[in-house]
């Protein structure tokens, strides 16, 4: 009876831990969101021009102040992204403040948001794209475990004639 209770308690504990871990995997997924203030050309035959200035605020912190053709970024944990945009369409205009919520896809690390398309209320395929890091020629990192810790890569200094030929054998 006691051992049954113990097994049940252990299983319950494991289940709770698995549950918490699953929860953490969902709520803790990090994303990098890039904001592009770039003109979207020829979307269904129309052009959506970049604003003169866009100030992006995330969690009360100003993360980017974008002029035309500029990109900013912010990191976000979770899938429900919120930002406040302060958009000045033309120089001298009054800035318009808009709060925007986005649902970020779980599987995507870096998300590029085209702000003119988003502000124009276009469908997701117009303003959303995945950020693909450019593959650079990587500098060869030393593979750990190669060589030795004692600086004896050049050998033990035992090369050459040790004079063993003179040792009588047998």
């Amino acid at each position: 009876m006691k051992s049954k209770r113990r097994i049940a308690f252990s299983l319950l504990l494991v289940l709770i831990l698995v549950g918490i871990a699953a929860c953490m995997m969902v709520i803790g997924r990090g994303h990098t969101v890039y904001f592009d203030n770039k003109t979207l050309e020829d979307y269904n035959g129309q052009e959506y021009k970049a604003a003169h200035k866009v100030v992006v605020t995330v969690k009360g912190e100003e993360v980017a102040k974008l002029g035309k053709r500029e990109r900013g970024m912010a990191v976000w944990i979770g899938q429900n992204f919120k930002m406040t945009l302060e958009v000045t369409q033309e120089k001298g205009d009054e800035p318009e403040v808009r709060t925007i919520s986005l649902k970020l896809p779980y599987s995507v690390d870096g998300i590029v948001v085209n702000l003119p398309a988003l502000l124009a209320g276009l469908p997701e395929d117009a303003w959303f794209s995945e950020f693909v890091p450019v593959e650079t020629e990587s500098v060869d990192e030393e593979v750990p475990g190669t060589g030795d810790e004692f600086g004896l890569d050049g050998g033990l200094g035992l090369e050459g004639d040790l004079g063993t030929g003179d040792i009588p054998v047998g």
Partner: protein
Amino acid sequence: MKKKNIPAGKKALELVRGNAVPIMFVIICAIFIPMAGFSPSYLLNEIITRMGRNLFLVLCLLFPIMAGMGLNFAMTLGAMGAEIAVILVADWQIWGIPGVVLSMILSIPFSALLGFICGTLQNMAKGREMITSYIINFFINGWYQLIVLYIMGSIIPIIHASIMLPRGYGIRNTVSLLNMRQCLDDLLAVRIGGVKIPVFTFILVGLMCLFIIWFRRTKLGQDMRAVGQDMDVARDAGINVDRTRIISVVMSTVCAGFGMVIYLQNIGNLPTYTGHSQIGMFCIAALLVGGASVEKASIGNAFLGVILFHLMFIVAPGAGAFITGDSMVGEYFRVFLSYGVIALALIMYEAKKRMAKSKAGRELAEAQKEKEAAE
């Protein structure tokens, strides 16, 4: 019962003898602090940061000491388990506090399995637990290197190139934990006079202390203490000695895994191949500096040890530069001291044991002589 009247001089001498290591470190720190020339607020800031970073790790050493298994050099196994968990979590891009919590949960099976292996092996080498655990470290370290260097990326899927070696498998020398960095320390943190106090981390340390106090009073805790005092008596009393000893090591390695996650989130990066190598040594040295011994350690020893040992760590390079003009001398000095203090504690433990044994032998011989004379 009234205590015997012991002269004050003898009392003081006993006190000094019993606390020789902490007193030595207090003197060293008192000499080094003015030489290093750091401001009090800087020193306080550094001490508090290092307390938050290391205390959890040091506290996990108390369980095996309770069970009479000495200093658990195998806490490094828990650190390795935590490192594997952190690598996976970094690859899955789980950031912030959820990342820390997930790392801790993921580290449990790795640490528990390694702790179980270590405990079982230590049971086969009773009386030589410390050296056994030390050698097990090297053995498991080889497996760790194999997993991290060859299996991760080739068999265990690793998605992100940023943590993988350019050859396509194996983990880089350093894994960035920037998105996890100090997330626990910054939670509820308060600043008093320029000194940042990581309140949440201290709450975790406090909970660990409460757990240790509570655990000592439980049936299992009492069993551990009984096993620690005398294994044969404990066995005769119906305690499953081997099982109790294994549990103490498993608890220690699992807690070391949690401690390592706390440590890594504070540092903000993971030195994949070297991160765990010095952890055991420095934690054990810190505990011994706090006045603990191989057979007796308390929460107070852990706190005092971390403060004194890390104070010495902070001021030693500055003092070295002041004395010799080269801060590296201070670096060597602190490493030499940390190994030295472990050696000293082990020698003192062995000498004490031999003295007690010979004293008991003498008393027995005298008693036999008296008996023979009476007959």
